[in-house]
């Protein structure tokens, strides 16, 4: 059935207000978008790695989730989700559970790219019927903007402060979506918040309703850590895709598909200049940093176009 935003927003809300995520938080938008892709009659078990989302969406006795929710630790959301799914399969076989359950793990980039990486990789390799969603805000925002392996090069993080010694984070961002695709799982996709959420919704729906392990990487901007005004999130996301900093693509059964090609590929500074974490790159004498980022983005974009041919 063709996507209709009007029909989708009419569904009962599965992630309610009153959670303690910051005003303008991208993680909350990611969660709502993923949960909206569930059929209303299906139930879900949500597994959450430690992170902003976890500390803010379940403060005893207040849960923002309408579905079952488990938090265990930072490093094992993948293993926990896999374990629940394996138990469900047995209970279903024995006739002890009749309803349809879906298993969705959420982790930030700290819990996914770094700390939870081994358990995520293991769960994917074992072939559990789960979805792992990374809400990627490119640093450890919960503890105060420490760099992660997802933080892009030159970003000013509290453990890679931009100054006279280093120009922000020295290393490039890890390409986790490609690493997940290399696991040979049936569905991997990368998206963010754009317009009527068609791209986001269709990917979330495919991730949930494709049998086997699937992975969704969602750029989820953080107004505190990226240092922009809360109301500008839609503009930041649009610039991320139009500069090809965050391309939209999916990998279905090993076949790469580009979902969005900007009519006019914008220079990276359009994206960088909107955010305080890159402000030092616009100081006199810092032009080389912008050139380096542009070179890196161009190289990644060309490689992606080649994979999607």
């Amino acid at each position, binding site marked *: 059935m063709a996507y209709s935003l009007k029909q989708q927003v009419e569904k009962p809300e599965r992630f*309610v*207000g*009153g*959670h303690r995520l910051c005003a303008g938080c991208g993680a909350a938008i990611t969660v709502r978008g993923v949960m909206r892709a569930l059929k209303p009659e299906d139930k879900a078990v949500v597994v959450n790695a430690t992170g902003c989302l976890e500390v803010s969406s379940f403060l005893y006795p207040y849960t923002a989730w309408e579905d079952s929710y488990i938090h265990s630790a930072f490093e094992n959301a993948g293993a926990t989700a896999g374990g629940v799914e394996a138990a469900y399969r047995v209970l279903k076989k024995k006739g002890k559970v009749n309803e349809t359950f879906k298993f969705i793990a959420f982790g930030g980039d700290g819990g996914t790219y770094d700390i939870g990486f081994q358990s995520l990789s293991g769960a994917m390799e074992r072939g559990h019927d789960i979805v792992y969603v990374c809400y990627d805000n490119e640093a450890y925002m919960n503890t105060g903007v420490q760099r992660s392996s997802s933080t892009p090069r030159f970003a000013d993080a509290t453990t890679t402060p931009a100054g006279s010694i280093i120009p922000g984070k020295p290393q490039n961002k890890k390409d986790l979506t490609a690493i997940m695709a290399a696991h040979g799982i049936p569905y991997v996709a990368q998206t963010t918040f754009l317009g009527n959420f068609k791209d986001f919704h269709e990917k979330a729906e495919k991730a949930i309703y494709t049998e086997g392990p699937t992975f969704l990487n969602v750029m989820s901007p953080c107004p505190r850590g990226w240092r922009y005004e*809360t109301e500008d*999130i839609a503009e930041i996301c649009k610039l991320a895709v139009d500069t090809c900093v965050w391309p939209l693509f999916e990998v279905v059964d090993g076949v790469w598909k580009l979902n969005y090609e900007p009519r006019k590929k914008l220079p990276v500074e359009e994206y960088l200049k909107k955010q305080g974490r890159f402000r030092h790159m616009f100081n006199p004498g810092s032009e080389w940093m912008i050139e380096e980022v542009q070179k890196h983005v161009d190289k990644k974009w060309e490689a992606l176009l080649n994979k999607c041919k």
Partner: protein
Amino acid sequence: MTMTKKANEIKASEINESTPWQEMTIGGEIYEGGTSALVNTGEWRTMIPIFHEEKCNHCMLCVPFCPDSSIPVENGKRKDFDLMHCKGCGICFKVCAHKAISYEKVGA
């Protein structure tokens, strides 16, 4: 001796800072969904979105962008803001193409 309730009979709305541990659920579990709706996060606001219904064409573009699930929808129409939970981030104001949302200082 007081009658103790079964864990699944204890409601989030009955638990507060002075609840003794005997009357809480074990292991930080809670047996109902969406209990955060009881929490007033609207008091965080320093800015407030104002809905101008006459300008709204119910395109719904603002709804999925709301981090606080504070734009209710009913029968194809978007309703006024849930101000008990809206934190006043202003994302809706920016994505609205019809100027149906204004964004103002609280108490201005």
